[in-house]
């Protein structure tokens, strides 16, 4: 099957949006990320809206788009309904995030978390169909969820680090690493399904990825940029922030002795500066990891469409 670019763009942006929602939901449950929740909620909403517009470009008749809610047994109808639900939850959450309504924000945060988990699963499940063996597996919706967590968590953690909040940054960086791990595991699980799918033929074989016409997309796109680079960068970012925090703590520990010499303010400022520098450096690495993840996600979806030949392609 030819690459369906509007749907590809939609699925990547949807994943990033949903990962961000899950990140915000975790933040609400733990009572952290207060300063970034509004910009991140707006970011999630914009990603979802732009993705939705991109997917509409796939329709032959955009004027009839709302007919899509006509058959709730259809995966596409469920997907549109889930997108609407996530959009409304994100919008209300963003409005509440501007004010101080802790209880309501927590409830909406939990709803955002649920929407962020359910929507990628629904979107991925809409592709599961017996006619396309390479898609007919639960590993596909899991891949949509896992890669979404990777994109959203890394994006959100980068924004948290950019704001330079020490305690929040530590949790955000750990979440970024968890998101990347989810992305890596689910990407590999989907690639494994391609190898195991029924009705094997050359057009949807694992050999096409390893040594065939999709080798560049697989090795350079998925393996190097989608798996190895983001995992390494997320881990290095966590280390960098930890090193900064360690240097800061050492500086703060030396402060009393220095204080006796009458320069306590300078030592404390030095400690804070070292920690902030570590977090800012980590932010830079996370932006790099995000760029790699986006390329990796695009590459994996190109492969996903390329191997999605039907059981018997008789005319088209």
């Amino acid at each position, binding site marked *: 099957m030819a690459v*369906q670019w509007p749907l590809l763009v939609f699925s990547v942006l949807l994943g990033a949006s949903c990962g961000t929602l899950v990140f915000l939901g975790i933040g609400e449950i733990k009572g952290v990320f207060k300063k970034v929740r509004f910009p991140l909620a707006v970011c999630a909403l914009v990603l979802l809206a732009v993705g939705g517009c991109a997917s509409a470009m796939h329709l032959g008749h955009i004027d*009839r788009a709302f007919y899509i809610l006509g058959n709730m047994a259809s995966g596409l109808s469920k997907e549109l309904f889930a997108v609407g639900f996530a959009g409304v939850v994100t919008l209300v959450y963003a409005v509440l995030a501007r004010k101080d309504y802790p209880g309501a924000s927590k409830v909406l945060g939990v709803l955002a978390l649920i929407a962020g988990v359910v929507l990628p699963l629904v979107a991925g499940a809409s592709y599961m169909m017996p006619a396309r063996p390479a898609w007919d597996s639960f590993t596909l919706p899991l891949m949509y969820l896992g890669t979404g967590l990777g994109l959203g968590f890394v994006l959100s953690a980068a924004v948290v680090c950019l704001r330079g909040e020490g305690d929040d940054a530590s949790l955000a960086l750990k979440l970024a690493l968890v998101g990347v791990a989810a992305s890596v595991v689910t990407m590999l699980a989907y690639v494994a399904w391609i190898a195991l799918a029924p009705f094997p033929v050359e057009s949807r074989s694992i050999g096409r990825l390893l040594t065939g016409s999709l080798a560049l997309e697989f090795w350079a796109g998925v393996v190097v940029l989608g798996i190895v680079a983001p995992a390494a960068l997320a881990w290095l970012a966590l280390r960098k922030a930890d090193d900064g925090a360690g240097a800061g703590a050492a500086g703060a520990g030396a402060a009393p002795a220095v204080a006796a010499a009458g320069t306590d303010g300078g030592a404390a400022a030095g400690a804070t500066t070292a920690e902030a520098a570590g977090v800012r450096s980590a932010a830079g690495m996370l932006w790099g990891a995000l760029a790699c993840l986006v390329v990796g996600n695009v590459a994996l979806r190109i492969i996903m469409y390329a191997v999605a030949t039907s*059981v018997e392609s008789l005319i088209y």
Partner: protein
Amino acid sequence: MTRYTMAIDLDSCIGCHSCAVVCKQENNVGLGTFYSKVLTIGPSGSYPDLEMYYLPVACQHCENPQCVSVCPTGASYKREDGIVLVDHAKCVGCQYCVMACPYGVRTYDESKDKGVIEKCTLCAHLVDDGKTPACVRHCPGQARFFGDADDPESDVSKMIARKQTHKLTDVGNKPSVTFGLDKCEWKGGE
């Protein structure tokens, strides 16, 4: 209950492509688009024991059509007489049914009625007028049979009764079109 379907005697098919041509003419099918095609299967075996047959393909008007169950608007539907159709007034051109069809016999037609899905209608307009589909009427090998699969006296039922029969690969959709082939080894899925 009437259950219209088609049976094709592959031993009688001469691979002339008349069915594909007359289908385009009858249904005003756009340039580069086909509701029906004739594939050449083989040659297979080793010399001098070679064999080959022709396989006319189109929508299989499945008993459990996946294209209908995935259609988000209800544009793809199955009539009570078994014919699967597309209501172009409801079709949004999402191509979800094209993905769900196991046989690649649906197409997104931009040449005629832009932005909707096209496929074999089993010439429903002729059937409703008491006639047979154009491909059946014009087949010079008399290889195509149309009728009610539930009527043992129909042409379809009679052909199925006298031949070794096969169907395209079934992934739960239960294709209704039957292929009769005695003289060669069937190379399809079922």
